[in-house]
């Protein structure tokens, strides 16, 4: 192993070691120092990755520090660090003790760091499943709430089926291309049918991971049951990881005409049904879950273009969506004390009694609705830009109309926060760690909203 290679592998090493260290030394340390270690390790991995030039790695087969990793590892690290900051207070209030929690978050991050580095289908699959595996545990972590365990079980059962589909898809693509290494993949015309079949099965598995209709049914239950910070992490990073997997594969097995119809169907159904179902929710976590279905529909729309612009829009939207949902779930989690505050009516007047958290939640809603000058608008703009450029006009119109309908349920939360006369009792003041996380997420929403240039450039570099 050369020094450069070690240098490139450092984000993976840092997160892996931190996960093990937290797990092994956890019993000896205070919970606050565990959080601190976790946040530091995530931040270190993210910063390290951001400033490392892409390079191949010879010593470990199937790994390379790709341009994509340079973008995604910092993004995942940001999400993990924020999740840890958010869960510190949340877990204390919910009496979720122990080192397992931060260790599992770090383990998930470790797997997420590996995923964009993969140059081999097996590593890709292992990384993706490791991410899911960590989430099975995280979702069911809250032993005090029956829903949490139930959600974990649901997620595990559905996830296992999806994993089987994904594995089968990889197996078929392997059969068709004759190699596991992505770069060496041969797509001989006579094998095209097998590869297409592989894609078909793989898309099913990925539809589950991305919660695209009709494979979305687990989403509301799992988001509702999971501890809120976990839901934040799950709804953002795991989705971006799945989208990244698709991008990596599409880069090596160019988009096939056969993929268009199923992907278009998944996209339209998700945009329309996701938004329609969200309209009817009274529970904010379920509402966000359905809205996440719709947002993944937008992502699928951009993927469908099969163009670089579309892929750039996917990455950009992934990053923006991460900031938005972290802010939304973060605000919800920091407002949950003895009682989980999850009915939309529980938030009456919170905008005035807890201005910071109410403001962050309102900002997240406005951004999710795609109203400028927030990041959500920029994200939506590039999605629809790529769709129009890719010539899928009818889908873009459907998407934009469903986006318009979505404004209603996001605004309902804003209205609940600020526009009702009766006020719920003031929540306790926000803790430092949670406040920091919320500020970071909101800052990201506003900065990207006003000045998206740098992020765009990073996305462009990542696709090179």
């Amino acid at each position, binding site marked *: 192993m050369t020094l450069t290679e070690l240098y490139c592998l450092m984000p993976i090493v840092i997160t892996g070691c931190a996960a093990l260290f937290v797990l092994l030394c956890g019993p000896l340390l205070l919970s606050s120092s565990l959080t601190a270690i976790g946040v530091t390790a995530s931040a270190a991995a993210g910063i390290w990755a951001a400033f490392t030039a892409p390079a191949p790695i010879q010593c470990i087969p199937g790994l390379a520090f790709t341009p994509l990793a340079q973008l995604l590892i910092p993004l995942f690290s940001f999400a993990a660090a924020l999740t840890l900051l958010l869960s510190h207070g949340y877990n204390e209030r919910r009496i979720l003790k122990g080192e397992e929690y931060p260790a599992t978050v770090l383990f998930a991050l470790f797997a997420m760091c590996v995923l964009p580095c993969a140059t081999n289908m097996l590593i890709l699959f292992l990384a993706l499943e490791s991410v899911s595996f960590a989430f099975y545990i995280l979702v069911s972590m809250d032993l005090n709430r029956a829903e949490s365990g139930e959600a974990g079980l649901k997620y595990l059962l559905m996830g296992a089926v999806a994993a089987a589909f994904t594995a089968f898809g990889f197996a078929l693509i392997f059969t068709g291309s004759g190699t596991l290494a992505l770069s060496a993949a041969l797509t001989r015309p006579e094998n095209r049918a097998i590869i297409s079949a592989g894609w078909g099965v793989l898309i099913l598995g990925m539809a589950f991971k991305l919660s695209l209709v009709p494979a979305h049914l687990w989403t509301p239950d799992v988001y509702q049951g999971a501890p809120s910070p976990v839901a934040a992490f799950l709804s953002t990073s795991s989705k971006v990881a799945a989208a990244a997997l698709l991008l990596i594969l599409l880069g090596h097995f160019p988009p096939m005409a056969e993929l268009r119809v199923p992907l278009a169907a998944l996209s339209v159904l998700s945009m329309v049904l996701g938004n329609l179902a969200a309209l009817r929710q009274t529970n904010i976590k379920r509402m966000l879950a359905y809205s996440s279905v719709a947002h993944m529909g937008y992502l699928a729309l951009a993927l469908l273009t099969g163009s670089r612009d579309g892929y750039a829009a996917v990455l950009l939207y992934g990053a923006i969506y991460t900031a938005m949902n972290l802010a939304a779930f973060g605000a919800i989690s920091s407002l949950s004390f003895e009682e989980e505050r999850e009915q939309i009516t529980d938030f009456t007047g919170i905008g*005035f009694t807890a201005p910071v958290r109410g403001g962050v939640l309102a900002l997240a809603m*406005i951004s999710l*609705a795609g*109203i*400028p*000058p927030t990041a959500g*608008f920029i994200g939506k*703009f590039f999605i*629809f*830009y790529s769709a*129009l*450029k890719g010539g899928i006009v009818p889908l*873009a*119109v459907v998407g*934009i*109309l469903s*986006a*318009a309908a979505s*404004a*209603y349920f996001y*605004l*309902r939360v*804003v*209205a609940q926060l*600020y*526009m*009702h006369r009766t006020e719920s009792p003031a929540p306790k003041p926000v803790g430092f760690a949670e406040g920091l996380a919320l500020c970071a997420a909101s800052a990201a929403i506003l900065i990207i909203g006003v*000045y*998206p*240039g740098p992020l*765009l*450039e990073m996305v*462009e570099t990542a696709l090179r």
Partner: protein
Amino acid sequence: MTSLIPILSLLIFLPLAGALLVFALRRSASAARWLALVFGVAEFVLACVPLAIDRQGGAQVGVPTGFFLYQDHGWIDRFGIRFTLGMDGISLVMVILTAFITIVAVIASWKVKERQGLYLSLLLALQGAVQGLFLSLDLFLFYLFWEAMLIPMLFLIGVWGTGRPVYSTIKFFLYTFVGSLLMLLAIIALYLMHGAQTGSYTFALPALMHTAVPYQLGLWLFGAFLLSFAIKFPLFPLHTWQPDAYCDAPVAGTLMLASLLSKTAAYGLIRIAYPLFPEASRALTPLVYVVAVIGICYFAWVAFAQRDMKRMLAYSSVSHMGFVALGIAAWSPVAVSGALMQMVNHAITTGALFVMVGMLDERAESRDLSDFGGVWGKVPVLAFFFLVFNMASAGVPGLNNFVSELIVLVGVFKVAPAAALGAFLGSVLTLIYTVRLVQEVLFGKESKPTVLAEVSLREGSVLVLLAVVVVYLGVHPGPVLDLFKAPLELLLNK
């Protein structure tokens, strides 16, 4: 001309900075009030500065003709999105109008009881967005401000509104948002088309004007723009959000909605939609005539049936906006300058009337016509101003609305006599409900006696300010019309 001081950016960022400062000082209501007023006045002074500079200016390289102030900065370079601001006569008048109305709104909000700091801060933020919209020469930037206006407005109605504020605010928001999103698609489509034709991908409005748009597609794109602008205008039959929003909004909110936000739509039609799609707009002109005339007559008729004064004014306001639509549809120099003049006059008159209804509401805690009567005898000063503004609104010669409505009618009569005739009938209807309003409120017999207080110094100052403008524009509209002349020539002869 690019001046040393970036006046155009300052016009946008000064109110935004004011909003932040006022927000920071929101704990002290009086500090917030005075600070908001200071920022309002400062903005007005700044807006008037271009009046003093040489507006002819030699054309400079890279500056679109007709714009005497121009600023251009890179923003999202990858997509050719730039922070481009420009000012010609039209935007100059709109910017001054915005600054003026905001001062009126701040003073009219002097007695807001709850969370006044936040209220004023939102008002200033809204002003910043409106100014940005009037100055944008980049279509992306225009859209950004167009949508960003919604956020402060949403809170102004929702938090401080009366009646059914949440219902009204969400209705208002959804209507405008749906229209805007389709406009966004149209903007992107135009951008892509221009890029494909010329190889330069840009959102710059002057460049996009030279895009060759196929007729059929042009109809769709123009339709999307028209829909979006017609909703905010509001044109019949897309107006149903408007009476609710106008009625339930607090005074300053109604003022901003009626006086400024509806003008942003008219401005969009004049600056963007018509010049961008000349063919399509000509094809759809009969449609605009029809909805404009229906609007003028129908809303005047509906206004007549109202008992709630604010609701009556809301309908009266859209009825008058019909003249703006009519003038734009005729697309001739006379008609459009009349439409622009009507935009200014409507903003002043309607604004003044809403402020006065706010005053009456504050005093009698009612807006029902039957709760008033004999106001003339009780509070003569207030009644006098009420009469003046109503006369202006009805189009009495010598006051401002007369001038602009006449110009519009003259302009339209040349190209579409039937439409002009319809509009004329509508203005007769206006006279009927105005006379009834004035008669019942000022001279009628009241059902239950109410004690009304005379206007205070603060209120009086606003009313005098508005009345002076009403009379000035009524007798001497020349200078304002002159400002429109050159830019209109450029727009119409594109």
